[in-house]
């Protein structure tokens, strides 16, 4: 079902956990849907210097979280926001059709974190 890359991220997730004093936090999902992703970010001069995640969810949710953190670490906020769910799915070697919605979650959580950072919490 899952590609090797998904399984690699699922088995060895990068950047799991939380940060002590994050500059911002993003969260999407809720337990009834079966997915929650939390991202904790350190941001220094528009650059994401550190990032960690916590995920309640399926294999795809964990793997997309893990890859997202890996991809954005060291990037500027602008660069990070340019990463699309499609990029994520592709970099993971594809996701099963019924799991595509999971690949939205990590990018949504990132957007939420950055919105919070910028105070645009609409």
């Amino acid at each position: 079902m899952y590609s090797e890359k998904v399984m690699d991220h699922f088995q060895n997730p990068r950047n799991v956990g939380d940060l002590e004093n994050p500059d911002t936090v993003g969260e999407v999902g809720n337990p009834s849907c079966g997915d929650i992703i939390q991202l904790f970010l350190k941001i220094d001069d528009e650059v994401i210097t550190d990032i960690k995640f916590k995920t309640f969810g399926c294999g795809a949710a964990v793997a997309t979280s893990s890859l997202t953190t890996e991809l954005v670490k060291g990037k500027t906020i602008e660069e990070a926001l340019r990463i699309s769910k499609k990029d994520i799915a592709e970099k993971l070697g594809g996701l099963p059709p019924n799991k595509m919605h999971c690949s939205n979650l990590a990018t949504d959580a990132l957007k939420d974190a950055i919105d919070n950072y910028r105070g645009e919490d609409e």
Partner: protein
Amino acid sequence: MNEIYLDHAATTPMDVEVINTVNKYMEDYYGNPSSIYKTGQIANNKLNEARKTIAELINANDFREIIFTSGGTESDNLAIKGAALALKDQGNHIITTKIEHHAVLHTCEYLEKHHDYEVTYLDVDEKGFVKIADIKEALREDTVLVSIITANNEIGTIQPIKEIGTFLKNKDVYFHTDAVQAIGQIKLNVQEINIDLLSASAHKIHGPKGVGMLYIKKGTKLVPQLNGGAQERNRRAGTENLPGIMGFKKAVELVMENRQKYVEKNSYLRDKLINGIEKSIDDAVLNGPRGSKRLSNNVNFCFKYIEGESILLNLDMLGIAASSGSACTSGSLDPSHVLLAIGHSKGTAHGSLRLSLGKDNTEQEIDFVLEKLPGIIQRIRDMSPLYIKEKERS
């Protein structure tokens, strides 16, 4: 890495004797049972022998009350649609439960949508039991059919099917039961229980896939759902799958021979698993009852704060095959309707794990699972935002 297969409620490996039987019939019995030449007539006689064996399993009065189908799903569809449509003039109300298999639930929904039937989905208690009082209350003038699963495939609850049958006796409704999970483990007597229609499936008892049967008590009206040739006394069209059916027969013979032995063995392993998990893992909620009212091969837990698919993937990495009522394993958003029906929140229901035993599982396998599972659950919980939140709260 050897696989530890703990998903026997989904499907079972075929017994080697069953494989040999299917083989023999593939090789030597190709005749069409509806034909009058010898090879056809021989095939037809064999079909009837298979009916006799299955009639014996459930103590049907007459082998002609057994018809063959393509599996449990088709049997459920035929029983429910067939009986409901046959009694259309008498009423359009059906009673079933919230914890039926989808083969029953979605069939009822089909009747609601395409034939204007009304369906009452009975609640169950927190262990998954239906209450006779609820059936009584739900019964109406226009009720034509009551369909209640003998034993639940997810949480193993065995319904008081005899009491239900006795209660329904002399009421003017048909009583159908989905015994797909039950026939391998529970001695059923359709005459004593007063059942009109009973579904079963071969591949759940180490038989072949794609073969099922429906018991249709003599005199029960049924509108056929697979229309075509005159096979199965005009109740189910389609060239009969003799090799598969003979494999089913063999599997049933093995059930009659070994049922008690396996039930004892599995009950022991089941309880070892349940006790071991409860001892080693916090916030693990057993789903379904304990003891003799639980299928001897069923273990089902909700592990709070985590989601089931992650558990399955981690188990799979160790070669352990299991299943979950998590929505993510089915591609929908809603977790198991059974777990919701017994009172779980969606969040908790997402974190379920079903381990279902089979005749060949060993105590070592169970020990291995008990050794590995706590670490897996902990690892996933450590990743979970819910777990932290709960701990902070306390």
